[in-house]
C-alpha cells in the first residue's frame, strides 16, 4: 500500500483565518473558553515556570558546587529551595498535567469542549494569578529580612517555623494565600475533567473503551479532589494562626506542630501520585503507538491505576518515620507503602509486555518513554528501600532522599512531560518538532540527569543532609557535589535545546498532517490544529482503538474485545 500524503490545506491558516492586530490576538486568548486554547495556555504557563524553577535549581547547585561557598546569601538560599520546590509542584507539575488533560481529554473522548468551558477558563486564571502572586513576593513580600522576602520555610512549610513569632511579615502568607488560590483553580479543573470524562463521551465510548490517558486523568482528578482540599484546609488553619490568633500549630498554647506534618503529608503523598499518574498516562499512549501493538493488559492497567489512587491515600506517614510514631503505625505505613510497589510493578510489566515483540520506532517521544521506564524502575527501587522504616531512619532528609524523589519527579515525570510535548505538539501546532534537536535534547538531558541524580545518592550515603547552605571541605563531598552541579548545568543545556526546538519548529517545523504518528485514538482524526468545534460530526467508536478499526477494516479491534 502506498504511503499517501494526507491532503490538508495549510492547517494554521485554516484554523485562524485572520490574525488581526496584536490586541485582537491577545483578546482572543484572554477571553477564550476553548479547551484547546486553555490547554495551551496551561502548558506555556507551566513551561515558563519550569524554566524559572530550573534557574533557581541552578543557583542552588552553583552555591553547593564547592565547599564554603558564598555565591548567594544564606537567606536567598532558603528562599530559592523553598520556591524551587513550591514552583515545581504547584506551578509546573499540576498545571502541565491539567493543560495536557484540557487539550487531549475532550479530543480523545470525541467531545467538542469540556463540560464547563467557563469554569475551565476561571480555573486556569485562578491558578495563573496564584502563581504570579507567589512570585510577587520576591518584590513585594515583607518578611524577616525586609522587603522582597519570598517564602523561605521549605515547600512543606513545617510549623512552628511558619508561625508569626518565627516568620514575621508576610512571606509565609504569600505561600499560603497563593497556594489556596491555585488550589481552588486545581479543584475546579479536576471537577471539570471528571464531569467531562463521565458525561461527555461520544457514542460507543464506554468506560472500558476509553483511552488509558483519559482513564488515568480521571483517576488523577478524583484523587485531586481529596488531595488538594486537605492542603487548602491546613493552609486556612495556618492563616487563622497567623492572622486571627488561633493556636492550631502553636506549641506554646498546646497546639501541635506534628498535626501540620500529618496534614501536609495527607496532601503531600497523594500529590506525588497526582503528578506521576499523568506521566504513566503519557507512557500508556506513546509506548503502544511506537511499538505498533495494542497496550498489554488494558483492564489490569485501569485496575492498577485505581488501586494506586486508593492506596496512595493511606501511605502519607512514610514521610514521618523519623518523628517517632508507634511501632504499629510504622509497620502499617511500611506495608501500605510497599503495596504501591505491587501496582506500579503491574504497570511496569505491562509496558514491557507491550514493547515485547513490537516493531519499535525510536522517535523522540518513544526515547523519552524508554528513559522513563528505566529511570522509574530505579526510582521505584530506592522508594522501596526508603519505605523500610529502619533504612529511612538512617537516610531520611539526606541527599539520598533528594535523589530518590528527583528520580521520580525528573526521571519519570519530566521525561514523560517531554514525551507528551513531542507527541502532541504536531496536533496542537500543525508542525512537528525537529527530530534532530529532539534527539540532542534527549541525550544531553539524560546524561546530565544521571550525572546529577545518580551522584546524589552517594553524597546521601556519605551523610550530606538536605537544605544545607554550605559544607566544610573535609567531609569528602567536594568532588561529588561538583559532579552534581556539572550535571545540572548539562541538563540546563538540554532544556534550552528543547525551548529552542519549541520556538524553531513553530515557524520552520515539518508540516505534520492530521496523524503524523500513525496513531489510534480519536484526537488524530481531527485536523492539526483542530478547529474550534473539534469534530464536525460526532464520532462513534466501537473499540479502544477507533482509528485502528478504520485503518484496518479487515481486522478491526472489536472482533477481539469483550
Amino acid at each position, binding site marked *: 500500500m502506498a504511503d499517501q500524503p494526507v491532503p490538508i490545506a495549510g492547517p494554521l491558516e485554516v484554523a485562524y483565518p485572520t490574525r488581526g492586530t496584536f490586541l485582537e490576538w491577545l483578546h482572543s486568548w*484572554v477571553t477564550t473558553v476553548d479547551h484547546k486554547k486553555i490547554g495551551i495556555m496551561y502548558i506555556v504557563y507551566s513551561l515558563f515556570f519550569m524554566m524559572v524553577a530550573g534557574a533557581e535549581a541552578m543557583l542552588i547547585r552553583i552555591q553547593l558546587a564547592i565547599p564554603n561557598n558564598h555565591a548567594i546569601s544564606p537567606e536567598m538560599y532558603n528562599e530559592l529551595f523553598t520556591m524551587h520546590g513550591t514552583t515545581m509542584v504547584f506551578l509546573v507539575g499540576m498545571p502541565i498535567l491539567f493543560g495536557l488533560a484540557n487539550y487531549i481529554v475532550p479530543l480523545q473522548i470525541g467531545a467538542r469542549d469540556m463540560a464547563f468551558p467557563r469554569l475551565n477558563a476561571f480555573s486556569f486564571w485562578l491558578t495563573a494569578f496564584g502563581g504570579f502572586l507567589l512570585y510577587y513576593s520576591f518584590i513585594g513580600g515583607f518578611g524577616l529580612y525586609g522587603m522582597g522576602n519570598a517564602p523561605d520555610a521549605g515547600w512543606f512549610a513545617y510549623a512552628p517555623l511558619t508561625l508569626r513569632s518565627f516568620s514575621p511579615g508576610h512571606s509565609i502568607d504569600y505561600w499560603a494565600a497563593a497556594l489556596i*488560590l491555585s488550589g481552588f483553580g486545581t479543584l475546579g479543573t479536576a471537577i471539570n475533567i471528571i464531569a467531562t470524562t463521565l458525561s461527555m463521551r461520544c457514542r460507543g465510548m464506554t468506560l472500558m473503551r476509553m483511552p488509558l490517558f483519559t482513564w488515568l486523568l480521571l483517576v488523577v482528578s478524583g484523587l485531586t479532589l481529596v488531595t488538594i482540599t486537605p492542603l487548602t484546609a491546613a493552609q486556612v488553619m495556618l492563616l487563622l494562626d497567623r492572622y486571627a490568633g488561633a493556636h492550631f500549630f502553636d506549641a506554646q498554647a498546646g497546639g501541635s506542630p506534628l498535626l501540620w506534618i500529618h496534614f501536609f503529608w495527607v496532601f503531600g503523598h497523594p500529590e506525588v501520585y497526582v503528578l506521576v499518574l499523568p506521566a504513566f498516562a503519557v507512557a500508556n499512549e506513546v509506548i503502544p503507538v511506537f511499538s505498533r501493538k495494542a497496550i498489554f493488559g488494558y483492564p489490569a492497567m485501569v485496575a492498577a491505576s485505581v488501586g494506586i489512587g486508593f492506596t496512595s491515600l493511606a501511605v502519607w506517614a512514610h514521610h514521618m518515620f523519623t518523628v517517632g510514631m508507634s511501632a504499629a503505625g510504622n509497620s502499617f505505613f511500611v506495608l501500605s507503602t510497599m503495596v504501591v510497589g505491587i501496582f506500579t510493578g503491574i504497570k511496569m510489566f505491562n509496558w514491557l509486555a507491550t514493547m515485547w515483540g513490537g516493531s519499535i520506532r525510536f522517535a523522540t517521544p518513544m526515547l523519552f518513554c524508554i528513559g522513563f521506564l528505566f529511570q522509574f524502575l530505579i526510582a521505584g527501587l530506592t522508594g522501596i528501600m526508603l519505605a523500610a522504616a529502619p533504612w529511612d531512619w538512617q537516610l531520611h532528609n539526606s541527599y539520598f532522599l533528594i535523589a530518590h524523589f528527583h528520580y521520580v519527579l525528573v526521571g519519570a515525570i519530566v521525561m514523560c512531560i517531554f514525551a507528551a510535548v513531542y507527541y502532541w505538539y504536531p496536533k496542537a501546532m500543525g508542525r512537528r518538532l525537529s527530530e534532530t534537536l529532539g534527539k540532542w535534547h534527549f541525550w544531553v538531558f539524560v546524561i546530565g540527569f544521571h550525572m546529577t541524580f545518580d551522584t546524589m545518592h552517594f553524597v546521601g550515603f556519605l551523610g550530606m543532609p538536605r537544605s544545607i547552605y554550605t559544607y566544610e571541605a573535609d567531609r569528602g563531598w567536594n568532588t561529588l557535589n561538583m559532579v552534581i552541579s556539572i550535571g545540572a548545568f548539562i541538563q540546563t543545556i538540554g532544556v534550552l535545546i528543547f525551548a529552542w526546538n519549541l520556538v524553531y519548529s513553530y515557524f520552520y517545523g515539518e508540516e505534520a498532517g492530521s496523524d503524523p504518528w500513525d496513531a489510534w485514538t480519536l484526537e488524530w482524526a481531527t485536523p492539526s490544529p483542530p478547529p474550534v468545534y473539534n469534530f464536525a460530526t460526532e464520532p462513534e467508536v466501537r473499540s479502544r482503538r477507533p482509528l485502528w478499526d478504520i485503518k484496518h477494516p479487515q481486522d*478491526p479491534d472489536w472482533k477481539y474485545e469483550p
Partner: protein
Amino acid sequence: MSEQIHLEPKGMVGQHIAMPEPTAWPIVLAFGCTMAVAGLLTSWGIGILGGVLIVAGCVGWFCDVLPHEKHEEVEILDQPIIITSHRALVERIQVHPRHRAHLPVETYPVVSGIKGGIAGGIAMIIPALIYGWIAHHSIWYPVNLLGGAGVIHWRNPSVADIAAFHWQGLLVALAIHVITCLLVGMLYGAMLPMVPRHPIVLGGILAPLLWTGILHSSMGIINPALDERIAWGWFVISQVTFGITAGIVVSRQERVPTGQSLPFAARLGIEAPGLMHSRPDVGPPRDGGKH
C-alpha cells in the same frame, strides 16, 4: 489494502455549530479573587478592589449563562481528513502448538508433595536413629543435635549430655523436622516434572547430594557446634533416604493439568488481539450493514 475513510461529510461544510461564546468574566472573577486575597497581604484598598471585581465577575458570568448560555455560531470548514495507514499489514504472532518447552503441561498437586514429605520424613528417621545407636548407643543423640537449641540451660554440652533424653530438645527437633520435611516435600512435588528423565535419580540422589554439599560448606558459619559433631556420611544416607522415598511417593501420585495448554491471554483474562484468535461467530456490536 486499507480503505480510505473521509471523516468530514461534504454536506456539512458551510453549516454552523454552536460553541460557547468567549467571555471575559471568568478572568475578571479570577483576578478579583486574587486581589481579594492579596488585600490580606498588602492593603485593604486592594482587598476592596478585589471584592468589587468579584461581585462584577459573578453578575457578568451569571448573565452569560442565564437564562440561556450564550453561544457563537462557528462555521464548519472544509478540512477533509483521510484516515489511512501505510502499515496496512497486520502480523499476528504465530505460536506452534509444540513451540513450548519450559513450563510443564501437567504437574503434581501440592498435596502430593506434602504426602511425599511425610513419607520421606518418616523414612529418614530410621538411618538417623541407627546412626545414633551405633555411634553413641543412644537414639536421642541425633534428636538433640537437631533440636539442641531448645535445651536452654546448655553451655558447651558433652557427648553424654547430648546422648541423654531432653523433652525440650525432642519438641524442637520434631518441629524443625516436620516443617522442613513438609516444605522440601512441596518443593519436590513442584520440581519433579521439570527434571524429565530419571526423576528419582535426579530428585532423589543428586538433589540431596547438592543440598548436603551446600550445608557442608555453610554449616561452619550457621551453626559451628553442630558442624563439629555432624557425621557427614550418615547425613548423606538419611538425606538420600528422604529423597528417594519422597520422590517415589510423589511420582506415584495423579498428575493435574496446569492450564498451560490454554491460550496465554485466556489464562490472564485479558484482551490481547495478537495472541487470541478471531471469533468469526461474533459480529460487530452495532453493525448497521453500511460497509
